[in-house]
């Protein structure tokens, strides 16, 4: 296979990592909440999509917007009921609550769907490979990259160009002053949390084809999401994107060219990058 093929697969894998991790980056970096239940929100999205396709007969692509809405709803609910009480709590309290939520999610998924692997039916045009300029590219991977590019452009615009984005950045920098200036801090945080959860849910649904879906998903892939966020620098959308792409590329290239040690390459890369940039590639503060 040509070098370009490896790059393509790496970018596709990195895109998926970015999509799921970016929500975690927002909550961890901007709102200072260590949300270890983030993987559970992604898993929720995956199961939502499976449920809509199997029980309601919805085509896979149509489930994606529904999954986003459901993810946002559940995220907002969790924020109002649980997370908002933890904004000023110690990180240990946050970890205890969120890891507890994760275990509850794993048990709930096992209860409702059983311990087995789930699957979704892809439409025909997303299956197999397409030949572009003599290069065999996976159809689904191309679709995935397209979706993620659109979402990240939108996300960047939202945070850097809109009123909501400005309010969010202000509220994060100094809650009290922002509140004094009339910014509805609570509502802004709730919306931001819902947004992060919606993206995680979407990532979970899109990831079924690549990563699979079973109750242990919430824990199994959490390591990768945390890795992306810590390398990218919590709170930075651009840093998360860089980190996800770098890790995705190195993972795929390592496994292809040197399969004997391929699986360890991303951890080595993480160590090197964190030594060079202790606060992450685009860390906000040390």
């Amino acid at each position, binding site marked *: 296979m040509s070098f370009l093929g490896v790059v393509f697969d790496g970018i596709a894998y990195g895109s998926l990592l970015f999509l799921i991790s970016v929500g975690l980056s927002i909550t961890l970096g901007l709102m200072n909440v260590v949300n270890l239940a983030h993987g559970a929100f992604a898993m929720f999205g995956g199961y939502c999509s499976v449920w809509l396709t199997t029980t309601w007969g919805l085509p896979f692509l149509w489930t994606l917007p529904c999954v986003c809405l459901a993810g946002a709803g559940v995220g907002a609910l969790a924020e109002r009921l649980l997370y908002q009480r933890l904004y000023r709590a110690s990180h240990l309290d946050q970890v205890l609550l969120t890891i507890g939520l994760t275990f509850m999610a794993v048990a709930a998924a096992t209860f409702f769907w059983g311990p087995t692997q789930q699957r979704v039916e892809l439409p025909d045009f997303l299956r197999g490979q397409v030949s572009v300029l003599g290069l065999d590219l996976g159809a689904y991977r191309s679709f995935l990259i397209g979706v993620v590019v659109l979402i990240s452009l939108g996300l960047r615009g939202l945070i850097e160009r809109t009123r909501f984005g400005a309010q969010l950045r202000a509220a994060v920098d100094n809650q009290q002053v922002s509140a004094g200036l009339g910014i509805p801090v609570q509502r802004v945080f709730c919306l931001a949390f819902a947004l992060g959860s919606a993206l995680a849910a979407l990532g979970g649904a899109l990831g079924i084809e690549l990563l*699979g879906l*079973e109750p242990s998903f919430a824990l199994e892939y959490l390591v990768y999401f945390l890795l992306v966020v810590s390398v990218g620098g919590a709170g930075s959308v651009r840093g998360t994107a860089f980190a996800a792409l770098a890790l995705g590329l190195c993972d795929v290239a390592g496994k292809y060219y040197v399969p004997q040690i391929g*699986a360890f390459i991303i951890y080595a890369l993480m160590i090197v990058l964190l030594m060079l940039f202790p606060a992450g590639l685009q860390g906000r503060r040390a």
Partner: protein
Amino acid sequence: MLDSPTMTAIKLWGSVFSGFGALGLGMSLLLGGLLSACESKRAEPAAGTATTSASASPSTPEPEPKPGPAPAAPGPVKIGLIAPFSGPFAGAGKQIEGGVRAWLDQHGGKVAGREIELLVKDVTGVAPDVAKSLAQGLIVRDKVDFLAGFVLTPNALAVAPLATEAKKPMVIMNAATSVITTKSPYVVRVSFTLPQVSAPLASWAAKNGIKSVYTLVSDYAPGADAEGQFKKTFEAAGGKIVDSLRVPVQNPDFAPYIQRIKDKKPQAVFIFVPAGAQGTAFLKAFQERGLSKQGIRVLATGDVTEDQELDAMGDAALGVVTTHHYSAAHDSPENTAFKQAFSKVTGGKVRANFMAVGGYDGMAAIAQVIEKLGGQIDGDRAMEAFKGLQLQSPRGPIRIDPETRDVIQTVYVRKVEQRPDGFYNVEFDHFDEQKDPGK
């Protein structure tokens, strides 16, 4: 990534929460989960004392049947079932328990006039220390007559010395590494071993015109077992192993590995990866990259396309050739009756797989031994009764090798096909009387 105390803490929480999850499946499971969670919490301090008392006077459990006043009411025969009921292997535990309960349900729960009492313990995953303390509790406190279950090799290895000390028969219902039966004269296995099912696959491939094979296995002991045996048998039959890959046990994306295989253009690829997520991910990527269109065939041991997961793998698994000892599609009256009983006791949510058959046959073997001993259980006499024992199992005839206490059985060659009610491993060839070549 996590250090071990954290992992233990997490596993503890896991078993508590899955206790809740089991609520709908039955009170017994719930109690089992919660009890075992409590037990493993206080197991640490208790463990030391239990070991010393057991090892200082190994004969203490023995003299109990002898003193005079006891025989009036012998009470139930107690079987301690150690398997994971929470965490990533929870499905396996439920299969085994379902198999055992299916047998009990079919036979009215009584053998040789004595009730059978099942004590179910959740070992939570790969946790040798937990397995050991659960077994200690079962032997010392509950005074069980048989230890049974054991899905994962490390757990079985940790318990084997206790079986020797306490002279308790230990019935392996799944764990498939060759070496387990050599670790104690009280271990007997009714399930299978990986070399036992990989060797026939290599012979079949060599006989059917496949000359070059690429192997890909998960990088852990069973993977190495499967790879080693396949290579040995295939090369002895004149085949050529093009290249071998070992991949992480939890590998998220198979694309780069598949691409390597595609570049080499072998006639077939032999895989061994954990069933479920890993097997599905591999086969999907295999389809997506058009390797089957190039005529590359997939060979695997039957646990990759095991019955519980097969429907979820769907089209991706079509045409995969596997060797194993049990398929839900096996056509026999024993299998039909077994499947009925299994779905009755488990509520019909999941299809019984080879682990359920392991539980079922293990229970059947224990029952036969109790019958032979006339209800008077003694460890050494029980082991003699296990040796050479024969069963008409849902998988076909099986027997226990008197030399190794390991199972001898027919290994079937199967192909994944779609039937009106789902995907099945359809048997089309078989190798009779297969012993474990790993010993």
